[in-house]
Structures are given as structure tokens and as C-alpha cells.
């Protein structure tokens, strides 16, 4: 634990470039991650609006579609089949990796780890800066792939070979896929550099008194997330590397016995399943890389705004650890119908369903935290409650999908799409919004407008459920995902076709409403950065250390000595205290029990 005695009164002169662009200050890097992620999020949301319109009104000409896709990809305002797949692929990739991994973990790990553990900065400011610039580079590469002539990657965000390996199979597997693979390689580097830095910082730079069992749950979440990332991203990197070899060097890691475009390939002996194992070895932990930070943020917010300690602090840590551990031994539940040995399938059914236990513990602990609380409805608190609700709703459908016998009939249908969007997409996005509303004053020294936050939340949650609830029914009716339209059902099953058609229209209308609601947020966000009311030091009356730093950002975070920690972060409404919160830096009174 560091003895921070460096003299911070002697401010060295900072140029615009060193302060705002090549900054090594963790707070600025956090903001850079957030800004980039917000931009990427807007792009991905726009892509989803475009393909949702195709699903609801297939074959209808739309000026909106031709505005974004142009004559090349949407002749007469009707998007091409290939482009539909491209949009789906890039939407998924950006949302999972750029918004919810880079954006969520990058923003809040950077902002909060040093501030909440009482450190002057990250262990390595330079590596931290590098992590952001790699992230930006990979974002640019991914966006660039949307503009190449043969289109972006079109093999789905999981880019299963052989489809992704053979440009003859789909046009997006040409230059678009090359850019995708380059972008992902750079992204993985960014993520690894960032994660290593987070781990080292949490382990070594905690201030005096900040033992692991006094860490706020946010930090526990970021810490575990970083460990998952370090253990799983390299495996994706190797998967990507082997795919690159198959594409350019004629190797056959994933290819065997293929005839494509009339050409008999000589590659023999490879296995497409190998890729899937490697991919999902990252892919499943990735779900928790996305989710756990959101759960960490919401644990903090729900406790602060219920004015109650988080219920079962140790159980919350235990359940994060259990989820993290289990996340490494469940990957093949994505592969029940790939032709994998059914016995292997049974093992993965067992391990996967076990995850429901720590998840249930988390949900009940959240709910008990609300019980007999004194709830203050900041917009952050609203989004946190939204998160708990979507975590439940999306979580329970996971039980069905994890049951291999049931998965056979609904695998790769819209039921799956609905499940993971609710449990991972919505929960993580709600967690991210909650985090932005809660820590905005810390980031920008100003307050967001609460009323706009309320409007934003209520439209968003109604819209989000309106999109994904009906989607379960579309999936149960047997609608495969990644279909350009469902006209094929017209040939043999009108009943199912009508259901899919009706519900797809409803879903798209809700999707458009939710997308429009985000304009309110964007307006509030950018307006408040410049014009929002000035924040005071501790606007939410919170216990954690970041609220003991000055509102104006300074290098090194605390103007004088680093604070000393005397208690855990959750002494809210403690009997015998004068106020309903006690900052972590206040020593225990005589005879006071820790908790």
C-alpha cells in the first residue's frame, strides 16, 4: 500500500495535448473510453434500427435505409441480403466488445479503481494510455470495415469458419473480414494491457487500511473482470490467429473437405469445431466480462440510494467469484447441436445450470437491500432497479437454454437472441447508464438533469421490454436468427408466419421508440458537460473514497496525503451515527463494531 507523499501543489504545466489527448491521467482516460464508447454505441444502435426495419417491413422501400446504406447496398431503399448480415454482424461486435467491454469496463475501471482504493493513479499511466489508444485504433478499423467495397464481415459476430475463412462463400469474408480480424487483434491487446494494469493496481496500490474485505463491490467486480479477461482473451487471440493463417497461408486448422465456388480446396483434417471451442472459451467468460462490472456498479448504487448497507457483502463477493470460476467451464453450452459428443454436452448442462445459484444469490441480495430501505430515486437508482429486473427476466430463460434437450428445438432461434439481449445486453447497458448518471459529477464536476434522466429511463425500460419480450415468442414459434426475412414460412406454415410478422412489427416500433429515447440522454449528457449545475463534493452522500477528492480534477487525486481507510464502504444508516452515511475515512468510534 503506497505512502503517497508526493507534492502535488507544484503543478507542472500541461499542454492541451498532454491533458486532453495523450493524457496519462486515469480520469481523463476513463472519459476518453466513455466518449469513444458512446459514439460506437450510437453507430451500433443505428445499425440495429436499420435491420429491425427490414424485419418489420421486408421489401418496403425506405428513405431512412437508403440514406445510410446508399444505392450500392440498398438499391431503391431496400437493403441487400448480404448487407443485412453485415449489419447484424457489426451490431453484435460493436455492442459486445466496443460498448460493453471497452466502454463499460474501460470507462469505470479507469475512473473508479484509483479513486475508490485511494491511489494517485493507475500502476502504469503509460500502459493505461496505450490501452486507450489501441482501443481507439481498433474502433477505427472496425468502423472502416463498414466502408469497404465488398462490405463488412458478414459471418455473424461469432465469425464461425469456414464461412468467415472463405471470401468465395460470402462477400464480407474478403477485406471486411480482414479488417474485422485486425481490429479484434488490436482490441485484444488493448483489453489485456488494461486488465493487467487494473489487477496490479488493485493488488498493490490500495491505501492504508483498505483491506480486500473493505473494498467496495465495484472494485471487486472490476478486479475479477480483469482476471477473467486476462485468462480468456488470449484464447480468442489464438483463435483469431489460426483463422488468419487459414485465410492467408493455406493452413487447415478449421478447414476440411470443402468445395466452394466450384473450387475443390486441398485443405484437409481441420475442424470447424475447434474454432468454436476456442471462440467460446473466450465467448462465454466474455458474457461475464460484460455483466460483472455492471453488477458491481449497481451494487454500489443500490446501497447508496437505499441508504442501507448492501445485503450480504461477503456473499456478493463469493457469488462474483463463483460466477467467474464457473464461467470458464460452461463454454460448450453454445455447442449442443454442433455434433459435439453428447456426453460432453451433459457435463456442460450441469456446470451451466450451476451458475443460476450464485446469480440467484445476487438477485435476492439486491432485493433484500431494498427491503426497509429509504430509497432515493436518482436516475442511477432507476437504472439499477431496471438492471435487477432484466437480470431476473433474462436469467430465467437461460435455464431453458442451458437444458440441452430443450436447446435442440430453440437453438439459434430468436429465443436465444431475446435471452442474451435481456440478461447481458440490457443488464449491462442499464448498469452502464446507472454508472454514468451516478459518477457524472465525479467525471465532469457538473450534475446531469434528473428530470431528463427520469424520462430517459422510463421510455427506455418500456421500450426495451417491448422489444425483447415479444421476441421470445417469435423464437418459440421457430424463427431462426440472422434471417433476412421470414417469407420462407409462407410456403408451409402460415400460422407461424403470421405470428412472426405481427410481432416483428411490434418489436421494431418499440426499438425505434427506445432509440429515440436515447436522444434525450445524449442531449442531457453533452449539455450538462458544459452547462449542468456545478456539483458539490459528495452529491449522493456516499461513503466511498472518490467523494473525498476535490470536484476539480487534479493529478494525483488528493491534494495532500492519501486518505486512510477505517471501515467498509457500506455504513449507511448505521444506528448511533448522526448522519445516514459514514465515509470510509472516518475512524470507528470507541466501542463501535465494524459491521
Amino acid at each position, binding site marked *: 500500500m503506497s505512502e503517497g507523499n508526493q507534492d502535488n501543489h507544484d503543478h507542472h504545466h500541461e499542454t492541451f495535448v498532454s491533458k486532453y489527448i495523450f493524457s496519462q491521467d486515469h480520469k481523463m482516460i476513463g472519459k476518453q473510453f466513455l466518449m469513444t464508447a458512446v459514439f460506437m454505441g450510437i453507430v451500433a444502435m443505428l445499425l440495429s434500427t436499420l435491420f429491425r426495419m427490414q424485419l418489420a417491413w421486408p421489401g418496403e422501400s*425506405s428513405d431512412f435505409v437508403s440514406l445510410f446504406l446508399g444505392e450500392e447496398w440498398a438499391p431503391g431503399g431496400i437493403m441487400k441480403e*448480404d448487407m443485412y448480415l453485415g449489419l447484424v454482424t457489426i451490431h453484435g461486435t460493436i455492442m459486445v466488445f466496443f460498448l460493453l467491454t471497452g466502454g463499460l469496463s474501460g470507462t469505470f475501471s479507469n475512473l473508479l479503481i484509483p479513486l475508490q482504493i485511494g491511489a494517485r493513479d493507475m500502476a502504469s499511466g503509460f500502459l493505461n494510455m496505450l490501452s486507450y489508444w489501441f482501443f481507439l485504433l481498433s474502433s477505427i478499423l472496425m468502423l472502416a470495415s463498414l466502408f469497404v467495397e465488398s462490405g463488412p464481415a458478414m459471418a455473424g459476430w461469432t465469425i*464461425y469458419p469456414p*464461412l468467415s475463412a*472463405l471470401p468465395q*462463400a460470402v462477400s464480407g469474408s474478403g477485406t471486411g473480414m480482414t479488417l474485422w480480424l485486425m481490429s479484434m487483434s488490436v482490441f485484444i491487446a488493448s483489453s489485456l494491457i488494461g486488465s493487467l494494469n487494473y489487477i496490479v493496481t488493485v493488488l498493490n496500490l490500495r491505501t492504508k487500511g483498505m483491506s480486500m474485505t473493505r473494498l467496495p463491490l465495484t472494485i471487486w467486480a472490476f478486479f475479477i473482470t480483469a482476471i477473467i479477461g486476462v485468462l480468456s482473451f488470449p484464447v480468442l487471440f489464438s483463435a483469431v490467429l489460426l483463422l488468419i493463417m487459414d485465410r492467408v497461408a493455406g493452413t487447415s486448422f478449421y478447414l476440411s*473437405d470443402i*468445395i466452394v465456388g466450384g473450387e*475443390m480446396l*486441398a485443405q484437409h483434417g481441420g475442424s470447424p469445431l475447434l474454432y468454436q471451442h476456442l471462440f467460446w472459451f473466450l465467448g462465454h467468460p466474455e458474457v461475464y466480462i460484460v455483466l460483472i462490472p455492471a453488477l458491481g456498479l449497481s451494487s454500489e448504487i443500490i446501497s447508496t440510494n*437505499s441508504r*442501507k*448497507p448492501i445485503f*450480504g457483502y*461477503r*456473499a456478493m463477493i463469493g457469488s462474483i467469484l463463483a460466477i467467474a470460476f464457473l464461467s470458464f467451464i460452461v463454454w460448450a453450452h453454445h455447442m449442443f*447441436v454442433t*455434433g459435439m459428443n453428447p456426453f460432453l454436452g451433459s457435463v456442460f448442462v450441469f456446470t451451466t445450470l450451476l451458475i443460476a445459484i450464485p446469480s*440467484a*444469490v445476487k438477485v*435476492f441480495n439486491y432485493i433484500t437491500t431494498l*427491503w*426497509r*430501505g*429509504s430509497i432515493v430515486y*436518482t436516475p442511477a437508482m432507476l437504472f439499477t432497479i431496471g438492471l*435487477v429486473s432484466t437480470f431476473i427476466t433474462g436469467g*430465467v430463460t437461460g*435455464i*431453458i437454454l442451458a*437444458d*440441452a*434437450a*430443450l436447446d*435442440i*428445438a430453440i437453438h439459434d432461434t430468436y429465443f436465444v437472441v431475446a435471452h442474451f439481449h435481456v440478461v447481458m445486453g440490457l443488464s449491462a447497458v442499464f448498469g452502464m447508464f446507472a454508472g454514468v448518471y451516478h459518477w457524472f459529477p465525479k467525471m465532469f464536476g457538473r*450534475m446531469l438533469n*434528473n428530470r*431528463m434522466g*427520469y424520462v430517459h429511463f422510463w421510455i427506455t425500460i418500456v421500450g426495451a421490454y417491448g422489444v425483447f419480450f415479444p421476441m421470445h*415468442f417469435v423464437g418459440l414459434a*421457430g424463427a*431462426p436468427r440472422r*434471417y*433476412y*426475412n421470414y417469407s*420462407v414460412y409462407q410456403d408451409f*406454415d402460415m*400460422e*407461424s408466419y403470421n405470428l412472426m410478422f405481427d410481432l416483428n412489427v411490434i418489436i421494431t416500433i418499440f426499438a425505434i*421508440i427506445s432509440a*429515440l429515447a436515447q*436522444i*434525450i440522454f445524449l442531449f442531457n449528457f453533452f449539455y450538462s458537460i458544459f452547462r449542468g*449545475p456545478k*456539483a458539490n463534493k459528495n*452529491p*449522493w452522500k456516499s461513503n466511498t473514497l472518490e467523494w473525498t477528492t476535490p470536484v476539480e480534477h487534479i493529478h494525483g487525486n488528493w491534494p495532500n496525503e492519501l486518505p486512510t481507510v477505517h471501515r467498509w464502504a457500506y455504513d*449507511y*444508516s448505521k444506528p448511533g451515527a448522526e448522519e445516514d452515511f459514514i465515509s470510509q475515512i472516518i475512524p470507528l468510534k470507541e466501542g463501535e463494531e465494524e459491521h
Partner: protein
Amino acid sequence: MVSKLVVIGVIILGVIAIAQLIRVYEISSKLRNNNEAEISTRDNKFNANLMLLFMFVLFGGFIWLMLSYGWTGRGEAASVHGKETDWLLNLNFIIIIAVFFLTNSLLFIFAYKYVKKIGVPAYFYPHNNKLEMMWTIAPALVLAVIIILGLRTWNEVTSSANPESIRVELFSKQFDWTARYSGLDNILGKFDYKLTADNNELAIMTTNTIDSAIHYMESGSDGINLIEDKLNDEHLIFSDSDRESLLIDLDRKNKLVGLLYQMKERHDPNSDATAWDDFIQKDTLYLCKGKEYEFNFRSKDVIHSAYFPHFRAQMNTVPGMTTRMKFTPTLTTLEMREKKNDKKFNYALLCNKICGGAHYKMKMMVVVLEENTYKIWLNNKSTQTFRDKYFASN
């Protein structure tokens, strides 16, 4: 027409959104005078009420969806195992819907009830080990039941097919399906992708097909001999890149022809008979009610997935690897038409793994017949074996 309505709808919503924005902004500017982060009691109460209201909207919406779309799309399962998995699915749904209602109502009712009230402090309640044990053990018990039932069904569904079950191969390529029935001997002839030719789409392996593949590879229209001649011809002048691509092509074909010679050496001519009596069926897959089928799946190019929604069956088709799955149809097409009250209804086989632009159109009709009609169809087909077709085309 619809799209215009949508555009209008979007514009109207956009205008409403902007109007709301401005209004909210005006309110917010008024509020900015009192520079407080405090949330007013009115705002708290307002959001608490909305929490309760939202709970009713959520539950109401769910019930409405269940009532109007609940099982209509799925219909009755048309296979033996499908009935069982549907039963299990319903059981699981009952459990998860109960959990969904219970936990969501606790969440929203607490969110409504425990909103901040002046003078009522929050209750300091950091943990309770007994309670936490309880909600660790309770889900564990429920999950144990789910796991045991699930695995039992899974083992049944994925166990190997009876020796007597009918063998059918389903061959997938961008963007259609082809079936190969195993003929009278109920044994599918061997195959190898290198034998693919215009008159042997499924690359079936017999002495004749191996010989003709070797011949074609060596002296066919794009064969090795021709390429070598081209490269050695002094009158032809190639650019570097053209020469390069010819050399790559030659190298690939030499590798392939080497493998073909190996295949020829190892091939047992006695096994030809198992292949010759197979017959190939396009567009429509005919199945017999009450008979178990073992499907062998192959893919020519990329991964596809054979998805039979009405039979609750699915299996990926993987290039370079044969995958298998079995099921027994229980309702003929006519019976299902009657049940669904839809004269045009048909079973279908769809592709359910992204495989390229026309993925969404890749389908094969499936017709389930009574045993006697199936036999008539089968007798018709036995005059169109692979042998008949192959030699007719030569």
C-alpha cells in the same frame, strides 16, 4: 405504403420527443436556481408509483402475449422425442414463470413501498447468514430437479439409433438440401468430397467414380496435363501473377490427385454395392410415420444447420465431419393439416446456421406419409438408384 406510415410515425415521435425535451429543459432551467442535488419528495413518490405501475404493465404485457401468442406458433410436436421435450419445456416454463413473477414483484413492490419517507430511517441490516443459506439451497434444489430431468431426456434423445432405423443422408450446400436414401440394404455408400463431379454431386465412392475423378483431375478440361502444357508452352506469355496462380492451382491438383490414388488403392470394390442402390431425392424429403430415422449430415462448403421446427430437431452440418441425429415422426402431413386447420401446411427443413446471403431461403419440404403410401413412393424410387442415374448420364 406501410413504410410511409412508419416514416410519418417516426417523424411524429421525433417531434414529440423534441417537444418533450424542450419542456423538460425549461423545467430544468427553473430548477437550476436551487443548486441542490437533493431529489424532492415529490420526485421520489412519483418514481415509486411508476415502479408499481410498471410492474402491472410488465405482468399485463406478459400475460397478454401468453394468451395471444403463447403456443400458437409452435403447435403440437410431430415426433416422439418432441412430445417429451415439449412436456419438459412446459415444466421448465412453469418454474421460471413462477420465479419471474415472484422476484419481479418483490423487486417492484419493495421499490414502491420503501421509498424515502421523512423521519423513517433505513434499517441497518448488513447480512443474515441463515437467510442467505436458504436462498442458496432453495435454487440448488430446484436446479437439481431440472438437471436430472433434463439430462435424462438429453441422453434419450442423443442415444444412438436402432440398427433397424432408416438411414438417410442430408447433404447441405449453399443454399439447398439434398437427401440420399440408403436403398434396400439400409447402408449408405461411402463418400469423399474429392469425388464430386457433375454426375456425382454427392461425391459417392465407387470404383467407377474414383477412376473418373482421377481421369478428370489429370486430363479433364482444367486438369493437370492441360495446366502443365500451358505452363510449358513457349508461345504463351503469362504475367507473373497469372503464372503464380496457375502454379498454385497445379500444386493443389497434384495434392488432390495423389490422395485420389491413395483412395483407389484402399478402396474395396465389394463395397460398391452399398453405394449403387442408394437414391437421391431433391426438394422434398419423404418420411414414414412411426419409423425411426437416423439422419447423417454432411456439408459441402460452410456450416449449415438442419432445423426441423415441427419435429423439435436440429443438428449442425459440418464440412469434413459427419454429424448424426435421429427422430421418429408421429403425425402425417395430412393429420397435422387437420390439427392446424390449414390445408396448405407442410413440414419443412430449414437452415439455422448463418451460411451466406440466401441463408434465409434455404429449405426443403418434408412430407410424412402413412406406411402404405410411403411404400408406394419407395417402390417408385427403387427404379431410380444411383447406379441407374450414374450410368444413364455417362
